């Protein structure tokens, strides 16, 4: 076979477009910002304890900023140990009555909450975009509909627990201490609070330090829904408040979503106690593309897998495993697609890539990407102008990545894709499983039996075949190995909050 001509001698513009700046489009998008007027952010917020907003005992506060502009959005009370203790006591007091309530009555509170979330969904979407930095397209079309659906789903379980497969009349655990991350603030809150309340527990929830606002708006929704005092308590603060909550002796259940390192620390903290623990931690998901995959669909899936929410997703498809024979074709298509992504104002309805959540996270992504380059992987980004203020990182992919590279092993939690290759399905499975994590994986092929065979061998809790990053309240979510244990969502998600 004659060797293929070198790219340099190819006049085909399609082949060169990927490597050179995209020509200026004939037409540009007009700005299409979603209005900020739908949300009214107060200059300061307190902790939500026993149905009231209160200051921290020591009066401490911290600022929360909009990651896309660094504008200070509000000042929020910083909970200390005394505040956490007060919240746990309030939850304990509320537990007796709440757990004794007929399931059908608990259900109605949750249905009310679901409805109010639906009614206020645009306001909450804008708020979430402001506080988190993710595009309004995502908060409006993914986060908020899923939040409402999650409450709706678990509302229906509250009076049907006898049928859930955990024996007759399964009992709640008591007070649940819940700590959630900043990547899906309100959705992670829904994943934690909805099943906890449906099963008759009361909760103390600590939102992430950089995204406290939507949880505080949720507190207001609880009041509007008439939820009894103390059933839901929100304590804002940093890791110290989270540590105080998980270590509190009167907490019966600890649920944490976040980094694997912190998850391990929490597992050590609850060792030797009777506290029930569920952990949803990091991942390094493999997205496997076979040579018979529909390339265009696979490209969309890859983009969704690693650039959804700027890649700040625990189940992101951050390792692309491509069969060698389609590597070049796929990479060309992928690069071409990346040049069309729009990065910028998260409130603009045409924005695909928003801001990184914090300066700290941006520094971590930057350091890991630099390390990838230093270790010899080949870095590529589309031409992409980054706004002056705020925290931004251009979509980035690395080729010539080996399994030994840090960027193939460590969770980056950012818009950075590592591309590896394989020749046989066995090799793909071996590489996909070659990680301490086991949260998600993707398979792209037209061959049904191959999907089932590969899905069967992958050691991961969620497998997306010919799709990626799909979520649903009925579908259990959670990891194998060091991605944590326990499931959220579905009938399975009830177990985490029942004494079984």
């Amino acid at each position, binding site marked *: 076979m004659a060797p293929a001509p070198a790219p340099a001698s190819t006049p085909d513009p399609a082949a060169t477009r990927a490597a050179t700046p995209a020509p200026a489009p004939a037409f540009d998008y007009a700005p299409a910002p979603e209005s900020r007027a739908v949300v009214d952010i107060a200059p300061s917020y307190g902790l939500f304890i026993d149905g009231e907003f209160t200051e921290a005992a020591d009066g401490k506060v911290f600022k929360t900023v909009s990651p896309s502009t660094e504008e200070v959005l509000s000042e929020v009370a910083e909970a200390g140990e005394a505040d956490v203790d007060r919240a746990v006591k309030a939850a304990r007091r509320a537990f007796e009555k709440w757990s004794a309530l007929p399931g059908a009555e608990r259900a109605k509170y949750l249905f009310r909450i679901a409805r109010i979330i639906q009614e206020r969904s645009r306001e909450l979407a804008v708020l979430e975009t402001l506080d988190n930095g993710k595009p309004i397209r995502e908060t409006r079309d993914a986060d908020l509909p899923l939040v409402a659906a999650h409450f709706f789903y678990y509302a229906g379980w509250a009076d049907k627990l006898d049928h859930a497969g955990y024996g007759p009349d399964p009992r709640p655990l008591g007070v649940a201490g819940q700590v959630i991350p900043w990547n899906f603030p309100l959705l992670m809150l829904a994943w934690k609070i909805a099943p906890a309340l449906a099963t008759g527990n009361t909760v103390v929830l600590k939102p992430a330090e950089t995204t406290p606002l939507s949880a505080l708006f949720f507190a207001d929704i609880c009041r509007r829904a008439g939820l009894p005092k103390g059933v839901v308590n929100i304590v804002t603060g940093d890791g110290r408040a989270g540590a105080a909550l998980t270590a509190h002796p009167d907490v019966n259940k600890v649920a944490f979503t976040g980094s694997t390192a912190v998850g391990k620390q929490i*597992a050590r903290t609850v*060792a030797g106690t*009777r506290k029930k623990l569920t952990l949803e931690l990091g991942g390094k998901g493999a997205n496997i593309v076979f040579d018979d995959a529909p390339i265009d669909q696979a490209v969309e899936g890859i983009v969704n897998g690693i650039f959804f929410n700027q890649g700040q997703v625990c189940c992101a498809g951050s390792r692309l495993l491509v069969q060698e024979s389609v590597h070049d074709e796929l990479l060309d298509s992928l690069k071409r697609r990346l040049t069309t992504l729009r990065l910028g104002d998260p409130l603009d309805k045409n924005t695909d890539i928003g801001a990184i959540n914090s300066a700290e996270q941006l520094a971590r992504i930057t350091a890991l990407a630099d390390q990838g380059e230093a270790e010899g992987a080949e870095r590529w980004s589309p031409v992409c102008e980054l706004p002056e203020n705020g925290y931004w990182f251009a979509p980035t992919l690395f080729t010539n990545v080996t399994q030994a590279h840090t960027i193939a092993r460590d969770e980056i939690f950012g818009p950075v894709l590592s591309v590896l290759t394989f020749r046989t399905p066995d090799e793909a499975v071996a590489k996909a499983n070659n990680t301490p994590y086991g949260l998600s994986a993707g398979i792209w092929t037209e061959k049904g039996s191959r999907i089932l065979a590969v899905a069967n061998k992958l050691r991961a809790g969620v*497998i*997306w075949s010919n799709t990626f990053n*799909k979520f649903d309240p009925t*579908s259990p*979510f959670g990891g194998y190995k060091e991605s944590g244990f326990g499931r959220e969502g579905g009938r399975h998600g009830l177990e985490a909050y029942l004494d079984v």
Partner: protein
Amino acid sequence: MSDARLSVLKTYKLYVGGKFPRSESGRVYEVTDSKQNWLANAPLSSRKDARDAVVAARKAFGGWSGATAYNRGQVLYRIAEMLEGRRDQYLAEVADAEGLSKAKAAAQVDAAIDRWVWYAGWTDKIAQVVGGGNPVAGPFFNLSSPEPTGVVAVLAPQKSSFLGLVSVVAPVVATGNTAVVIASERSPLPALSLGEVLATSDLPGGVVNILSGRTAEIAAPLAAHQDVNAIDLAGADEALAKELEIAAADNLKRVLRPQPVDEADWSATPGTERMTAFLETKTVWHPTGALGASGSSY
């Protein structure tokens, strides 16, 4: 008695990877009955024995977890058959080990045999009970299935040397996990003899590995082992359980804490909890396409 003939004593050995090795350390310890009469010398397993057992269990995991559920059921039932044939031997060993009357020891052994039968029937039903399709709001097929966690370290109960042992081992392997089992420290002989039955029941070597010795000494390297996925602390006291749970956090092992039942009665019919404790849920999505989306009906 006309016992002119001297009986042949058994050398009790470990069961690892389908073979019966002595402890690599060459150590043994004296096992006595409840009245302190010497019964046998049992291997005093070392950390190295524990690590060797993990290697054997890992090696066996692919085949055993990949076997059909029906096949695993057949093998577990075969274990019950083999035990039934050696009932008298276990009866004597359990009576000695736990200081029980013949009748009480018989009840323990019979219950243990029946427990294998109970779990044999579970192998091809648990997936239907704890898995299933999920009605997601979109055009997707979505199925959740249980899968075995992997290599499970099992600290067998200290008092119930046989029924307790079987009650914690059978649920682990029924679902496709492989096990490294630490026998009751004081009464390891029924456990070590169980290896002889497992070896002749079509159970692939390495699926169950049985160690005897000091529970704390063997459990520590297992709890910290990076290639062990889960640990059942049934045979640990409070202080040891806490220590092991802390070590197990290092690679986020699934931990089954000691249950109140441990020191009590193992005769009650179990629930599914000892199986589900060592199962992962895998959820697979696939688009369903959109036939009929244009409004036609079939």
